[in-house]
């Protein structure tokens, strides 16, 4: 049974579902796959060695002691067990983690109030949303934690996502999942369908799917966030990463011809999608994929939570196909959850040591052992026990030139949920209204993003 539908995209730390552990044979193949990214593997230093190089910084591993309060919104069963295991795995036995758990959505809704009087370390999102609080002076600078070894543990893309607008680090990445086009390989094999590389391939494939009576795309937009996923994919495939980021930040205009082209392309693809998405929950749409009534869905890895446990191995994804050859498929959307330090924590040494620990493979392995529905960013996590789906997510993100977070994480939340979501819904209800919808969006963006 699914949860109540919500007005925002799921957090990696929220969903939580079981994936089968891979066999030894698959493990070997997976390891070979990872070896294709030597840069990443080379970056995986032994964490203990790394810290010894960190002389001169204020922070040293092993000095901390006492109680450490950890704020948690990991309120669902699997994430909850994972966090407890990861925190308990801290090598320094003198630090006693105290986890203060709040219901996931309550935490989300009250984050501004909570940050006035937070726990020592705090869960949150990478990128824009972290930067917003860092700018308000609500977060503690943890650049020394990164210098103490996380620089070796985590790749530069993750470091960028953890860096505030002032160039300092405020965040330790922890888990993520990937958006893409998810499908059931068995259905595709039965029909002889192949993964499309370009949008033209996709259109041709959709015609084929229609002819055998299967809806190409399951599509939902209840809560007004699911369709943002399709918008993001189309926008960075057509206009590239930089335009997408600038549009989200209010530096480009929604009435720009490039945005209109995105919606024009979307309109041509709408007949391949389930009609009337605005009243459908993503779980209902996912059920169409599970039941093989629809061939695929643009969604995140969390679609796995809708699969029966014995069928989950029949779930795979591919990046949204290329539209503009200039940009290919170089961008992938992967929302990252992680940890931040309060501006003035009660136990600063323990907070930094725990954050350092959370950035290492030891903690992330412990977490994933309980909640294998997501992927961890540390270069030293043990990918050989991961499922094929986890490895695919990992490889796709490692291969990507740019990583975006998702529309409702890449811009201010009031613009995302108050303007972008409802206006995209207006477009889906009546595509011919797009010009007036975009003018309205732009005038509101100027107010909300200009503030």
């Amino acid at each position, binding site marked *: 049974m699914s949860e109540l539908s919500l007005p925002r995209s799921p957090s990696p730390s929220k969903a939580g579902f079981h994936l089968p552990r891979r066999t030894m044979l698959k493990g070997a193949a997976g390891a070979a796959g990872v070896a294709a990214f030597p840069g990443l593997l080379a970056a995986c230093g032994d964490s203990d060695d790394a810290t010894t190089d960190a002389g001169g910084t204020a922070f040293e591993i092993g000095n901390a002691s006492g109680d450490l309060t950890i704020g948690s919104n990991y309120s669902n069963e699997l994430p909850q067990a994972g966090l407890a295991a990861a925190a308990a795995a801290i090598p320094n036995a003198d630090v006693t983690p105290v986890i203060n758990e709040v219901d996931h959505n309550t935490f989300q809704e009250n*984050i501004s109030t909570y940050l006035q009087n937070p726990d020592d370390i705090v869960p949150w999102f990478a990128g824009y949303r972290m930067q917003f609080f860092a700018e308000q002076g609500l977060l503690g600078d943890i650049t020394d934690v990164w210098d103490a070894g996380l620089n070796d543990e985590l790749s530069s893309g993750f470091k960028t996502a953890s860096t505030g607008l002032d160039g300092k680090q405020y965040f330790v990445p922890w888990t993520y999942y990937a958006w893409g086009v998810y499908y059931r390989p068995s259905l595709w094999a039965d029909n002889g369908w192949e993964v499309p590389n370009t949008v033209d391939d996709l259109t041709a494939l959709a015609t084929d799917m229609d002819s055998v009576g299967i809806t190409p795309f399951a599509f939902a937009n209840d*809560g007004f966030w699911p369709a943002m996923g399709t918008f993001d994919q189309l926008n960075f495939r057509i206009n590239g990463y930089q335009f997408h980021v600038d549009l989200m930040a209010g530096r480009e205009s929604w009435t720009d011809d490039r945005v209109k082209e995105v919606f024009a392309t979307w309109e041509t693809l709408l007949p391949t999608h389930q009609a009337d998405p*605005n*009243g459908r929950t993503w779980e*209902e749409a996912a059920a169409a994929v599970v039941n093989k009534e629809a061939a695929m869905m643009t969604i995140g890895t969390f679609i796995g939570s809708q699969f029966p446990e014995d069928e989950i191995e029949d779930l795979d994804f591919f990046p949204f196909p290329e539209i503009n050859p200039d940009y290919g498929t170089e961008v992938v959307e992967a929302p990252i959850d992680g940890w931040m330090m309060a501006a003035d924590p009660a136990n600063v040494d323990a907070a930094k040591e725990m954050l350092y620990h959370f950035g290492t493979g030891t903690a992330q392995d412990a977490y994933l052992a309980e909640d294998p529905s997501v992927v961890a960013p540390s270069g030293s996590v043990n990918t050989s026990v991961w499922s094929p789906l986890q490895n695919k997510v990992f490889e796709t993100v490692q291969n990507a030139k740019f990583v975006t977070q998702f529309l409702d994480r890449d811009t201010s939340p009031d613009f995302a949920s108050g303007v972008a979501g409802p206006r995209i819904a207006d477009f889906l209800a009546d595509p011919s209204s797009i010009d007036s919808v975009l003018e309205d969006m732009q005038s509101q963006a100027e107010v909300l993003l200009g503030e």
Partner: protein
Amino acid sequence: MATISPTKTPLKKGKPRRGKGPMALSGRDRTVFFLMVAVPTFFHVLLVWVPTLASIFFSFTDWNGIRFDSISFVGLLNYEQIFTVFERDFFQAALNNLVLLVFLFVGPTLFGMLLAYLLDKNLKGGRIYQSVFYTPVVLSLAVVGFMWQSVIYSTENGLATELFGGGEGVNWLGNQDYLIAFSDNLGISKNFIAILVAISWRHAGYIMVLYLAGMKSVDQSLRESAALDGCNEWQAFRHVLFPTLKPINVVVAVITVIEALRAFDIIYVLNTPRRTQVLSILTTNNLLGEGGGNVGRGSAYAVLLFLLCLGFVIWYVTNHYRESEL
């Protein structure tokens, strides 16, 4: 409430009351009197007037709700933006509040009255019908929203879809097309009608119980004499029964206005489908939530809702006193 003062004492001012004035009270009585006035007044001011005045104050500011030193005065900017940049949201919300009010007066009230009238006939199994119609009233509107969303209005397999869809999926809550359009961006949308139906499922039961209680207390001899005088069913209802229900009508009117203006939960839990927002939703969305919010604009929406409420409060107060003076 239900009884009309036989002495016709004006409530407002004028003639001194009989008996001793407050000055004649003993010291202890005076203390009790003082406490009984002061304590409720203190809480009323603290919990009602302070927040109200604070909202009015904040509506002239720009503040993200995080630190007090970041408040800045912007004059009427929030109101100006509501009536220009956010006009689509605002006018649709205000219209929905009014539609809800009119609808609750017409739909569930008449239906509830009809149910009460029928149940008052002492039908066989009347108690069972009564329980069935009353059961939804014990549910919160939020729960009603979840139930209707998943059981009745589910696009693929809801009860309403099965009954009226003719084998096709029906997009009940997502269909934002206007049933009655006043302009391109203002009208009564189909999904709002769907929500109104869900609201009346609960509200009609409430009205039914109120009227049923009223009808049960009507003197049986009135009906008998009406029957002897040769009234038909409609005449008996219109000229005999209905006038005796006047006190109930006042209660129903008050409840309906309150329900219409505070409407929030059912729409909020349904994730506010397009064009179904009401003013309280706009207020909440601007004040609460993840981003620190827009306290200034949220407060401005709250002030506008307050002014709307004030209109009805004034209407009610003047009406109520006029009736008391009859």
